[in-house]
């Protein structure tokens, strides 16, 4: 019973960070513009992150190797460096957007100036990371981020009043330039769900928590149900947005617009629960991106790393996540729009996706490395199929970004 309870808590904890500012932006806009007809893209991306998350966790548990441990040994030095540099540029940009997102929500909650709240958000995140042990950090953001489920409940409550067109599961009557916009949002949703920092954090988190071979089945359940719960929350935003914004003719271009979908169903309580859910989910993602950047750098460079170690034992790792958080706060202080920045970060992350996911697949199917826990036929087939999808998404993302002027 205790084990089941622990597992359930672990699954809830994995919600924090799964729905980040990129998911919030793309899901709310996708629902407002195209109703339910982009739910398939979320489902496709979620299955992909479940498959690759499970593989990266299994490799960490069995072979004690993280994504960048594999990259360091398997890639030619120049390609390995390029992957590390590019992934960390995306991590810093994503972290900047997440800190901006936290500041926006704090601004909406408190009314204090947004610019003042950026350093407050960054320092608050640093304090949480500094004072809490690794296992607690994930739980704090996961449990408090559960408020996002209010969108799913709001969607269920408002389903009967939703416009018929918004409820179509397949695109209908989309023509001309709208086809490109539809494709942009499909690619954006898949990319936002498969953001590489999630597997950097997940596999390194496995090492932090000391996973062993006996944890392989827990990893499988965690990755499938944990990412699944996150996807349900994201689907709830698409559905609530389709019911409310689609009908009103509102295209959410601000992070603060998204909670209005919960207000229509639950009033002030809905607004507050939605904003708190968003605050902790985005905050969790900010921590994950900062850690992901520090993990990548430390693992690539061969430095001692891990939040489970005291900071004095891992000075370079500690400085790395601190510098990433400060750099991210400085970037967003320049006045860049976090929503625009997150869209660019999500789309540019697709370039680094094939370079991130390929070594995971290679390691998970390596019999010498994985022994009896090597990929089965199903995992190999799905992994390969998803790798092809990731390459296609990577090819299409940047042209679509410019052709559609960010889906406008």
């Amino acid at each position, binding site marked *: 019973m205790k084990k089941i309870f622990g597992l359930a808590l672990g699954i809830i904890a994995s919600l924090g960070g799964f729905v980040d500012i990129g998911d919030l932006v793309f899901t709310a806009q996708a629902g407002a513009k195209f109703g339910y007809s982009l739910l398939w893209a979320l489902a496709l991306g979620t299955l992909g992150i479940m498959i690759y998350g499970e593989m990266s966790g299994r490799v960490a548990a069995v072979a004690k190797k993280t994504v960048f441990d594999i990259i360091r040994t398997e890639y030619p030095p120049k390609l390995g*460096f390029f992957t590390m540099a590019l992934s960390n540029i995306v991590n810093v940009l994503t972290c900047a957007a997440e800190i901006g997102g936290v500041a926006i929500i704090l601004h909406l*909650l408190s*009314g204090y100036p947004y610019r003042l709240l950026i350093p407050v958000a960054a320092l608050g995140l640093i304090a949480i990371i500094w004072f809490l042990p690794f296992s607690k950090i994930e739980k704090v953001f996961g449990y408090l981020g559960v408020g996002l489920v209010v969108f799913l409940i709001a969607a269920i409550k408002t389903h009967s009043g939703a416009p018929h067109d918004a409820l179509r599961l397949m695109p209908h009557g989309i023509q001309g330039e709208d086809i490109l916009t539809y494709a942009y949002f499909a690619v954006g949703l898949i990319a936002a769900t498969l953001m590489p920092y999630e597997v950097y954090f997940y596999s390194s988190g496995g090492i932090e928590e000391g996973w062993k071979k006996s944890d392989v089945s827990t990893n499988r359940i965690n990755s499938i149900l944990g990412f699944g719960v996150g996807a349900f929350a994201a689907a709830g935003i698409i559905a609530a947005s389709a019911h409310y914004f689609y009908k009103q003719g509102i295209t959410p*271009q*601000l992070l*603060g617009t998204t909670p*209005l979908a919960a207000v229509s169903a639950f009033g002030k309580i809905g*607004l507050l629960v939605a904003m708190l859910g968003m605050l902790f989910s985005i905050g969790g993602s900010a921590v994950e991106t900062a850690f992901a950047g520090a993990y990548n750098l430390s693992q690539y460079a061969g430095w001692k790393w891990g939040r489970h170690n005291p900071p004095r034992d891992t000075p370079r790792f500690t400085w790395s996540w601190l510098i990433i958080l400060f750099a991210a706060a400085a970037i967003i202080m320049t006045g860049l729009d976090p929503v625009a920045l997150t869209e660019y970060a999500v789309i540019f992350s697709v370039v680094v996706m094939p370079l991130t996911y390929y070594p995971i697949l290679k390691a998970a199917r390596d019999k010498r490395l994985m022994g009896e826990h090597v990929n089965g036929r199903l995992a190999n087939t799905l992994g390969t199929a998803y790798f092809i999808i990731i390459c296609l998404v990577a090819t299409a993302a940047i042209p679509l970004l410019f052709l559609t002027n960010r889906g406008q």
Partner: protein
Amino acid sequence: MSSGKSARNSLQEVEFSWPYPKNKEELIQVAMVTLAVLFLGLVITAARFTSYKNQTLDAKSLKQSAANLASFATEAGQTVTYADGEVTQNYRLAHAEELEKQVEDTVSFVETRHVRPNLQKAAGQISSQGRQLSNILSELSEPPTESDHTNKEEAAKLHRAGQSLQNLQTSFERLNKQLEAEQ
């Protein structure tokens, strides 16, 4: 001399223990490639910015601006509708402030670019109605004074704003349809 050289070598090993760049030459390679990428990025950004600044607005761009403004007016209208206890005051004020910035951006986008002669009137309408919307949002983002709070003035202000937003939304939607026909 040789001990100095070996000390430097061991320092290099410590400093460059990662797979790449391992030595000064490789570090220079990385720096050169980084500079080249940054330069290319800067050139592309500058070119895109110039073409963005000098673009002549057609019916499609104006339609997009009108659609955005209609969406902002609707959103602001919804927030006003919910003002009576459904949303917190902080949210309403802060969100109106954010919306005002977006409206200002959209209006200045239209005002600072060339417009095709047959679309001058539509651009003028977008600009003037956009300014009206911006003014309403500016008023909505002001915290109520003590007297506002205690009497019915605040409610009346919100009611007036709600009606004006409704009119502007209708007007932007009409303009949007006209521009769609022009396309």
